[in-house]
């Protein structure tokens, strides 16, 4: 069952009184009990997309258009009050930047309890017990002590886990996790990922997992969307994407992974930089400038999504002509 249906979503930021789209016509659905991973170059609009779903963009700075259907409701038409109830209770977000999402003046325990007070009808004692239980669940070994501490007294990874505890506290239907484990060591990362899965088994929540760690994607995702410069450029079930990535960006991305068993001095980076919002090409294949060795006519003029096998979508046609640069220079 689709629990989230996003149609033609645009999010533009105001820069010198003009709006520039950081998310530029994105459509997708999320099913319950599904983990949808979103990967993509830094600055491609992942967090902007996530923030739009829970309605936290400011009207003055950002223009959000399109549809975000959550059951019967279009979240873009909900009042602030309705959104306040949906946020946390039904759709929870784990922010990329835990320090700015936590209240610096409030003890950790009180912050978690606040979420419970607002969205559940537990008694005070139940809430206190629940706080400690949640902290334990996210792998914090001295929950009583940490509950009494303030955010600045915790390590980066501990703060991130507190965020996760708050996000799962009300058993939401959708969890949006923006880089939930980037600050965590691998052992706790594994533990948190297992925890999210367990929680999902219990509540059938749909999870949107934003990450740049392809290992995390491999271990967790059912389906993967790849974004570049505000657009989705490839989408596929996880096995398909890892077995045969198609879009040039996706292939270059996989190619830049540090290999545990390689002794190569240099990693394969993607040459060039992501253009800033104001300089983004708005027509044609946005990735063309990063792969100049691919002939211009390999790209579609108006790139569209092609379903190349069941559930596997690729934007533009340039993938058919793509080779890695060193291959092409050898051929020449």
């Amino acid at each position, binding site marked *: 069952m689709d629990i989230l249906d996003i149609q033609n979503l645009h999010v533009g*930021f105001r820069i010198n009184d003009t709006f520039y789209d950081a998310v530029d016509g994105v459509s997708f659905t999320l099913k319950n009990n599904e983990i949808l991973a979103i*990967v*993509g*170059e*830094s*600055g491609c609009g992942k967090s902007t997309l996530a923030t739009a779903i829970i309605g936290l963009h400011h009207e003055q700075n950002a223009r959000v258009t399109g549809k975000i259907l959550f059951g019967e409701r279009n979240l873009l038409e909900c009042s602030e009050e309705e959104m306040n109830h949906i946020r946390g209770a039904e759709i929870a977000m784990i922010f*990329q*930047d835990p320090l*700015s999402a936590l209240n610096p003046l409030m003890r950790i325990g009180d912050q978690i309890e606040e979420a419970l007070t607002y969205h559940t009808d537990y008694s005070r004692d139940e809430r206190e017990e629940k706080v400690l239980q949640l902290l334990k669940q996210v792998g914090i070994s001295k929950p009583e*002590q940490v509950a*009494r*501490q303030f955010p600045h*007294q*915790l*390590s*980066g*990874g*501990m703060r*991130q*886990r507190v965020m996760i505890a708050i996000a799962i506290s009300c058993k939401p239907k959708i969890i949006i996790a923006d*880089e939930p484990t*980037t*600050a*965590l*060591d*691998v*052992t*706790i*990362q*594994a533990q948190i990922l*297992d925890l999210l899965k367990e929680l999902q088994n219990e509540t059938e929540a749909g999870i949107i997992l934003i990450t*740049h*760690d*392809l*290992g995390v*994607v*491999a*271990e967790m*995702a059912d389906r993967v969307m790849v974004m570049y410069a505000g657009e989705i450029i490839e989408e596929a079930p*996880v*096995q398909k994407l*890892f077995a045969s990535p198609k879009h040039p960006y996706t292939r*270059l*991305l996989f190619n*830049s*992974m*540090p*290999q*545990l068993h390689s002794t190569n*001095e*240099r*990693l*394969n*980076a*993607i040459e060039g*930089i992501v*253009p*800033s919002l*104001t*300089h983004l090409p708005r027509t044609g294949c946005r990735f063309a400038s990063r792969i100049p060795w691919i002939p211009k006519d390999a790209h579609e003029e108006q790139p569209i999504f092609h379903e190349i096998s069941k559930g596997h979508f690729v934007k533009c046609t340039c993938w058919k002509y793509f080779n890695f640069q060193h291959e092409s220079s050898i051929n020449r």
Partner: protein
Amino acid sequence: MSFMQIIDLKVHYPIRGGFFNSIVDWVYAVDGIDMEFEQGKTYGLVGESGCGKSTTGKAIIGLEKITSGKILFEGEDVTKERKSRTSHFHREVQMIFQDSHSSLNPRKRIADILAEPIRNFLNLTPREERKKIDELLAIVGMPGDSKEKFPHEFSGGQKQRINIARALATNPKLIIADEPVSALDLSVQAQVLNFMKDVQKEFGLTYLFISHDLGVVKHMCDYIFIMYKGRFVECGTKQDIYQNPKHLYTKRLLNSIPATTPLGREKRKWARQEFEKMYEKHIHKAFDENGRVYDLIPISDTHYVSASSVKEVV
């Protein structure tokens, strides 16, 4: 020859509580560690979240009070000097902070953020300064028009690149990089790591590289410290750690590295949970009767392991 030594460093934080806000307990964030740094090498500092890695870094550059211990830089005891922001030590030792978002002043433009260390330590004309800023931005792959912008206009990864540019501004000798690439996507990560290696070669830089990504650590580091609850449980060359791990905690870290294929993930999850049970059963042996990790003892010229685990857990 090493140019910098850390000797028996300790950082303990008081926990206050009760009626009178008196000290009720202590967090032994860093509890007696020794390190040495040679020029041009990269040192990895790896360990569980909350084990004291950032505290170690911050204590070295003087942002945390040291409870006890000593820091020697080029033969001199700089334990006191390191607190003054304009000291020689400060120019030579820079830090890239873990929290890229909050370590940039939101009210300053990028140009001013980068100009700050330049003005503190280098004597440049305004023109040279502008050129330097352009160079720094180019080095980290940011568009030139970033200069006029404010931090909130950038994505997480972009902010981190600005942080790296700032640390490089004074051509330091040692850069303490606290999770410098964990907020970056893979291709930018590859760019930044390649770039860090390039400047290292060019300027003979030394890195203390704090990270939990064992793939990245393996790629970057010559020598690795494994930290656990404020102490080192194992240290050695890259080969020692990856090919011949001794301590149970080190093994657990290596065991939790996610695979890079979705195939077989159910099986891996099961194996991980089995390992976890074994770990829970044996890890208490890593501590002495006071709950402190045992001291390191050498098992080769380069490889040190916390005493208990040498015999017990192989």
